């Protein structure tokens, strides 16, 4: 692993278009600013890891291919399947 020491206000560059800035250092906490092309997905590692594990668990399943067909799906909906999605800016400090 590459180790780089940076001070507040300094940046590192990944490739030609990903910039990571050290915005603030306070005790055990570092605030980073990330500028990347829109196509680059940015996750907190723990979220990425738990979703990856859950995807793997779903793919592994109960072993066989049997899913119950006749199960109680509490909410019956016929017809409409499409939904809209809310888009919001989360708390920037979150």
């Amino acid at each position, binding site marked *: 692993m590459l180790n780089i020491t940076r001070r507040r206000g300094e940046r590192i560059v990944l490739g030609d278009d990903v910039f990571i800035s050290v915005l603030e250092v306070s005790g055990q906490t570092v605030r980073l600013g990330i500028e990347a092309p829109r196509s680059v997905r940015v996750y907190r590692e723990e979220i990425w*890891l738990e979703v990856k594990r859950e995807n793997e668990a*779903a*793919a592994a399943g109960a072993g066989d291919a049997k899913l119950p*067909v006749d*199960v109680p*799906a509490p*909410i*019956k909906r016929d017809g409409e399947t499409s939904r809209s999605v809310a*888009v919001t800016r989360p708390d920037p400090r979150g």
Partner: protein
Amino acid sequence: MRLVIESPRFGRVEIDPESVIEFPDGLIGLGGSRWALLTSDPSSPFKWLHCVDDPSLSLPVCDPHRFFADFSVQVTDEDGERLGLDERTQVDVYVTVVAAERLSDFTANRRAPILVWNGHGHQVINQAPGNDLRAPLFAEVATAAAGGAS
């Protein structure tokens, strides 16, 4: 012309190329750029999201709205912008399901739903509160099982 994949789970499966869903970013941590939704019984609440590029990958999914009355999806505006998604976009929503021996142990990932529209799919991080990574799909069954009433 139809696509044929040799699925370890289902054997030989023919897929209509029209029904292939492009996932430019794959599923989170799993990859796979082309997937198809398979079902053997249209009335089942479950479908299989099957990878076309890697036939060893398939995941059961369901429409969360069929199971959770309070389900909603909210994405960050970065994701909205990246995916060309806004409040007017009509999407199909799926969540991955971890199947188990007993219904009471089935869970769905409400935290990272899969949105499908215009032949494209994206797995996103749901910002709406109260969306667990492992939400019991059959909460009533699970409650009864926990209470010993099975």
